[in-house]
């Protein structure tokens, strides 16, 4: 297999190198991006960046108007660098001149007025505050001296902060905030193009079928394509790093202004390893994407949102408070970005960097494994020509889900803000169940059949009751696991229940929080949306997608994962039993137990044993469900 892989690799590399677009992207993007970063960065720092960044440098003068000013303060203001005292009266109403900050002295209070939305005004106010503080301190000192008291009488301790960071570390940190973004952008552009050409393009041009008709092992095909994409990624990353370094040499002044003065050959060399691992992750992701896409059109539609999501971690190195913690070190892509910054700044911790490198390698291997499996599937390799038969209803199901999200966000929240209880009832009945029924009517799909509204067997119903009783434990386990990263606001559930309860009875609360959501949400999610995707995707994928949608639907970051986990169980219950009533039963019992606990045992916290045991029983009950037909 090694010989075949090498032969394939050589030929595919030759073809890629002959492609003018691929070569242009590999060379032009990094070569043009480096000077663009230097020039753009310098321009940004000089003209757009907030005044904090310019503090300490010679700045432009800021106009200040002062009224009722003691002559000594006026003199201090006049003497101060960057402040220009203007005469005139103070505008009491309306906006201030952008470069204006005003100060009024009244009863020992210096009132500084400025425009926080205008950087020059913000800057002037900041300088004013500093000058006034210094003036005030000097006045106190003079008065103490005149009274024959020690200078420290009014202020026992003065705080003096000393920046001990070396110039190299500071500069490296600044450069580290920018370089990962350049690397990620260059990698994404090149890996996306190479993957599209080598996989989606081969499917579209039919050459993949030509290749598959030879005695080659499919693993050799995947390995060679991955190697070419990886090489293009690494190649472009190296060109980008070299271009950045050369830019700092040929334009040192601009590079310093852009915060890239800290780039050293040693620091950049240290990035080569990280870039390779980052390339491996990106190459595997883009190969997966290309393997999944039946055509260039589909690939380009998919790649844009994926690229945007993958670019998010590029912003992390710019945040000084973000450190390479244990969690971040095992977060794909983000770990390589932050590790790059730390390596450039010389602040990298050996353990964290090693963990980041190892986890990056592991992610690349896992993703490659997925790509391998995906490219081994005949429907994926031969695309729509072999075609597992797809229905267009999956797309419509996703549109229904998105419409649901929009309706709940805009109208659901509006009516709930007027009256929470009746707003919830209206949201459930009109916006959620109504949407399910209306969308199936518009799509001419039979309600009962699409939503699996058929009677479950008594065994499945019993299992649903058991699963429903244990479902809160599963939610609890997931909530506990995510707590270190995304914590549920304290007392959220109780406040929510109290709001719902108000002066109403327990029965009405159960109706609003347990019964209605069980019927209405299940009708939309496990009924209409899951039903519409039937035959389009594998059951596992359908259930997962609908569960994620269900999680998002709860409109709160801390609830997305726990509710998505519940959604997974509810989805599998529907699919396995082929009856929506099982998930309605589970959902109703789960919510009902939540309400009862809050009413009867508000301080009860289940232990880990109960949480894990209950979750296991819940999963086992759903797994034991059998198809009714």
């Amino acid at each position, binding site marked *: 297999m090694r010989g075949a892989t090498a032969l394939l690799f050589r030929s595919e590399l030759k*073809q890629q190198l002959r492609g003018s677009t691929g070569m242009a992207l590999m060379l032009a993007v990094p070569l043009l991006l480096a000077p663009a970063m230097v020039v753009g960065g310098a321009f940004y720092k000089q003209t757009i960046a907030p005044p904090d960044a310019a503090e300490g440098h010679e700045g432009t003068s800021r106009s200040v108007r002062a009224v009722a000013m003691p002559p000594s303060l006026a003199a201090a203001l006049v003497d101060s660098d960057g402040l220009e005292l203007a005469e005139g009266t103070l505008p009491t109403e309306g906006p201030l001149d952008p470069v204006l900050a005003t100060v009024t002295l009244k009863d020992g209070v210096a009132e500084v007025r400025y425009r926080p939305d205008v950087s020059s005004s913000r800057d002037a106010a900041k300088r004013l505050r500093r000058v006034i503080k210094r003036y005030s301190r000097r006045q106190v000192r003079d008065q103490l001296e005149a009274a024959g008291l020690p200078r420290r009488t009014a202020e026992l301790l003065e705080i003096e902060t000393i920046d001990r960071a070396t110039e190299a570390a500071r500069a490296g940190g600044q450069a580290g905030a920018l370089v990962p973004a350049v690397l990620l952008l260059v990698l994404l552009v090149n890996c996306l193009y190479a993957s599209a050409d080598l996989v989606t393009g081969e499917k579209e041009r039919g050459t993949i079928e030509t290749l598959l008709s030879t*005695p080659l092992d499919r693993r050799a095909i995947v390995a060679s394509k991955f190697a070419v994409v990886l090489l293009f990624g690494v190649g472009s990353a190296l060109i980008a790093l070299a271009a950045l370094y050369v830019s700092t040499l040929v334009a040192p002044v601009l590079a310093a202004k852009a915060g890239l003065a800290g780039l050293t050959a040693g620091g950049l060399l240290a990035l080569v390893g990280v870039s390779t691992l980052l390339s491996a992750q990106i190459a595997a992701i883009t190969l997966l994407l290309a393997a999944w896409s039946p055509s260039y059109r589909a690939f380009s539609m998919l790649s844009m949102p994926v690229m945007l999501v993958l670019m998010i971690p590029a912003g992390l190195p710019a945040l000084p408070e973000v450190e390479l913690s244990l969690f971040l070190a095992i977060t794909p892509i983000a770990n390589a970005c932050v590790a790059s910054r730390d390596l450039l700044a010389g602040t990298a911790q050996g353990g964290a960097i090693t963990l980041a490198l190892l986890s990056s390698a592991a992610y690349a291997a896992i993703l490659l494994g997925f790509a391998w499996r995906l490219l081994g599937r005949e429907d994926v390799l031969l695309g729509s020509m072999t075609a*597992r038969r797809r229905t267009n209803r999956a797309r419509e199901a996703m549109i229904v889900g998105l419409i649901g999200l929009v309706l709940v966000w805009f109208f659901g929240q509006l009516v709930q803000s007027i009256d929470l209880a009746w707003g919830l009832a209206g949201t459930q009945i009109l916006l959620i169940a109504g949407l399910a029924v209306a969308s199936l009517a518009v799509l001419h799909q039979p309600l009962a059949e699409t939503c699996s509204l058929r009677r479950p067997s008594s065994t499945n119903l019993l299992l649903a009751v058991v699963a429903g009783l244990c479902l809160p434990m599963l939610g609890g386990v997931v909530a506990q696991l995510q707590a270190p990263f995304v914590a549920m606001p304290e007392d959220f559930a109780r406040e929510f229940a109290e709001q719902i309860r108000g002066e109403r009875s327990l029965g009405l609360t159960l109706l609003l929080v347990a019964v209605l959501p069980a019927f209405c949400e299940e009708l939309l999610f496990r009924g209409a949306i899951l039903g519409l995707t039937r035959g389009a995707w594998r059951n596992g994928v359908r259930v997962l997608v609908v569960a994620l949608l269900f999680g998002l639907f709860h409109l709160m970051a801390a609830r997305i994962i726990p509710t998505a986990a519940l959604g997974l169980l509810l989805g599998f219950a529907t699919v396995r039993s082929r009856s929506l009533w099982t998930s309605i039963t589970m959902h109703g019992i789960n919510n009902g137990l939540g309400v009862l606990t809050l009413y009867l045992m508000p301080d009860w916290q289940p232990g880990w044993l109960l949480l894990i045991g209950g979750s296991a029983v819940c999963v086992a009950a759903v797994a034991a469900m059998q198809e009714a037909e």
Partner: protein
Amino acid sequence: MIEVDSLVKAFGGDPPKLAVDSLSFRAEPGQVYGLLGPNGAGKTTTLRMLATLLTPDSGTARVAGHDIRSSPEAVRASIGYLSGNTGLYGRLTAREMILYFARLQGVPEPERRTDRLLYRFGIDDYRNQRCDALSTGMGQKVSIARAIVHDPPVLILDEPTAGLDVLVSQTLLEFVEEAKDHGTCLIYSTHIMSEAERLCDRVGILHEGRLLAEGTPEELKEQSAERYLESAFIHFVRAASR
């Protein structure tokens, strides 16, 4: 040489669509077996299963003595596969394309074999021209050369003349006749009846995955009491659709 035994293939969906339903036939060396059928009859799926690009749901086939399920690589080494979907690498030259596949197939002295095929198909003058710059006819000739570069005992041709002009089609048909005389076993799928009448020793009529009728073109005409193979084909398909 080719023994197809109760092949079944369904594609996903709810319910799954049966593309090939219990298909069985047999083809011998030096024989052209024609698969005739309208679009969606299951011809391409059948040929892809024989080329081991698809795995059958049930049933099996032996190609050049190798089982498509247990020895797919040996099967692929014994076949030349050409279809409307088997494309060329546009950034390789005609010579590089054939040479590349000669090497992938493990052909001894691949350069010599490549040069011989370039000459044999009259594409020697275009040897250094990139495949994306070749005309459709020249491209198809390169495809044929690519498919037979390892001199396979079995050729699977899926609508090979689709989209070709009369002259290039003629070259291809002559090549099929030559390969047949050479003792190669050919499976030839088409819906052009004149090609089937000219080339095929035996013909199987496929419709909705099922083999409706099988025999020599003469036998099929006789069974259907029709004068032409085209009429016989229509006769069988209409009878099955009723």
